[in-house]
């Protein structure tokens, strides 16, 4: 089985936001806990406030991203990096032909490995890709990076393009994909399917990249990668986002706190009978818990299950009456009903029934 390497972008975003040295180190520690060992950082962004990255480097290998036109290789050397990604527009072969050899000589002198990061490559045709591959093969680059940060590609075409590129170039190929239209996970999956092993990701899609947790889960689930998920993956991702003062949305795929919360009658009934009816995987796998929520969409099974857990057996007619009140209250407060509220509704409906009898 191929091993996958994640090139993190969460840290780069934290640097862009000028997090403190301590925050950056904490983030690096959390990322390492997820099994992420590599991070690419933008050298220009680092230079804006020059945070100390020694703490970070205890956990992560860093590679510097810099423009091929004005490569800041001195910074990469100063930061003790082993490699740089030289960014250049894919459609401008003349540009990298002009600049790459001299940048590589300079990098070599500083003991830096050079990768060539080709922006806007997703819009190129097969012959254009072949022409680029031929040019790139004239240089001894460590890798080329297929860069679709503008998110112009879709999974089916990314797959076809990457198959061509992998076949034509002599060096390893990586991908760096943007999520502007919500396709970065699918495009990363397509890349892995095409044979790519180095993928740029960020926890929860921070920075606009492919969400790490989605890609890792998708390749495991759909391509059968034997990838051991870290314990409490959702919790660690939440902590990593918190370093950047971000909260992971409750419905965020794989790691959101509410993705195993069920409310609708049909779903609660199903999940009680057998979780696999309405759950794509077990919540424990990602460190989450199943929740049964009472609200506007609840059905009688959910209400009866709740009350039987409290030792109260509800008759059908009682349950229907209670359900009406639950729906009214849920719409009024525009949210789920708490256990306390549910018991209050039950008590007041009991009282009403007693009045009705007397």
């Amino acid at each position, binding site marked *: 089985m191929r091993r996958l390497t994640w090139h993190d972008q969460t840290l780069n975003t934290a640097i862009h936001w000028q997090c403190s040295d301590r925050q950056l180190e904490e983030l690096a520690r959390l990322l390492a806990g997820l099994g992420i060992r590599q991070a690419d950082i933008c050298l220009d962004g680092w230079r804006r406030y020059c945070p100390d990255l020694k703490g970070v480097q205890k956990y992560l290998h860093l590679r510097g991203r810099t423009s091929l036109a004005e490569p800041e290789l001195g910074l990469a050397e100063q930061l003790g990096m082993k490699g740089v990604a030289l960014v250049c527009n894919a459609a401008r072969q003349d540009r990298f032909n002009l600049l790459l050899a001299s940048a590589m000589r300079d990098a070599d002198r500083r003991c830096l490995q050079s990768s060539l990061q080709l922006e806007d490559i997703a819009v190129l045709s097969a012959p254009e890709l072949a022409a680029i591959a031929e040019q790139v093969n004239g240089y001894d680059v460590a890798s080329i990076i297929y860069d679709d940060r503008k998110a112009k590609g879709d999974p*089916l075409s990314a797959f076809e393009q990457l198959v061509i590129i992998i076949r034509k170039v002599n060096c390893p190929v990586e991908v760096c994909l943007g999520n502007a*239209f*919500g396709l970065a996970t699918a*495009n990363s*999956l397509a890349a892995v399917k095409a044979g790519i092993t180095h993928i740029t990701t960020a926890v929860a899609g921070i920075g606009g990249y492919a969400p790490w947790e989605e890609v890792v889960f998708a390749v495991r689930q*759909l391509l059968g990668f034997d990838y051991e998920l870290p314990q409490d993956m959702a919790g660690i991702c939440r902590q990593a986002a918190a370093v950047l003062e971000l909260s992971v949305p409750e419905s965020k795929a794989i790691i959101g706190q509410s993705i195993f919360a*069920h409310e609708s009658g049909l779903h609660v009934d199903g999940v009680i009978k057998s979780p696999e*009816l309405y759950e794509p995987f077990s919540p424990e796998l990602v460190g989450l818990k199943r929740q049964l929520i009472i609200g506007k969409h609840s059905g009688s099974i959910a209400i009866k299950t709740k009350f039987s857990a409290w030792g109260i057996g509800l008759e059908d007619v009682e349950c229907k009456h209670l359900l009406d009140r639950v729906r009214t209250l849920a719409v009024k407060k525009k949210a789920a009903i708490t256990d306390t509220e549910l018991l209050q509704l039950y008590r007041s409906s009991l009282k009403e029934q007693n009045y009705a009898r007397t």
Partner: protein
Amino acid sequence: MQELKQAVIVDTTLRDGEQAAGIAFTAQEKLAIATALAQAGVTWIEAGTPAMGREEVEALRLIVNARLKAIVFAWNRACRGDIEASLACGFEFLHISVPVSDLHIYQKLKKSREWVYQQLKEAVLFAQSHGCYISVGAEDASRATPKQFLELAEYSARLGAVRIRYADTIGRLDPFSTSSIMKYLARYCPLPIEFHAHNDLGLATANTLAAMQSGVVFASVTAAGIGERAGNAALEEVAAAMKEIYGISSGIDIAAAKKIGCQVAALCGRNIFPYKPVIGTAFS
């Protein structure tokens, strides 16, 4: 770039979207969302589930009576009570959902496939006797065989249904499997297919687009992608991707769709993550 020629958006923010745990819209909010969707160019709006009771019925009557420039329809199980509730709201187009996978038929309903067909037939005929058009929902289609789905589609077509929904109920498909399944189904299915994605693996938008590239015409979406668990394919993502990646129009005003996404998120009490595609501040 692979082609995507056409897609018709079917919005289910007010039905499957609202079904997300903890979300409840008031009648006025439901009307406002439906109105905004119709104004943005959405031509099919799944507005809710009348069988849920008084509040929902009141909200749905408001929406039906607003005479929006869109076909507004209701979700039903295949049972007379549900259909009666929809008729009482004044709906003329009904969606009737039945499970199609063995798992859902035998483990959830604990019934047989014949029983499901019989229920569907009675429900469809009853609704049609009141002059309604019907689309049939194939729940958990991605865990049924293509043969089971096509059988249901043929049965529904014979009953006079006008469309069938293929629901990836637990979001287990990926764009590649979606593409190969949908190419096959679109070729043999006697009814137009509506593809209904879930975002459990983060692939809902990609799967929806892949289905559209494979001959499926109708795309089921929700504003801001709200919905059960990790949600559905997001209206604004599908519409924006169609324009920016494939260069075709979905008939939806994208600026309006983004605004609706933001408003719906606000009505759900959810903050928009800055890196949420299309409507996150990092992208807009």
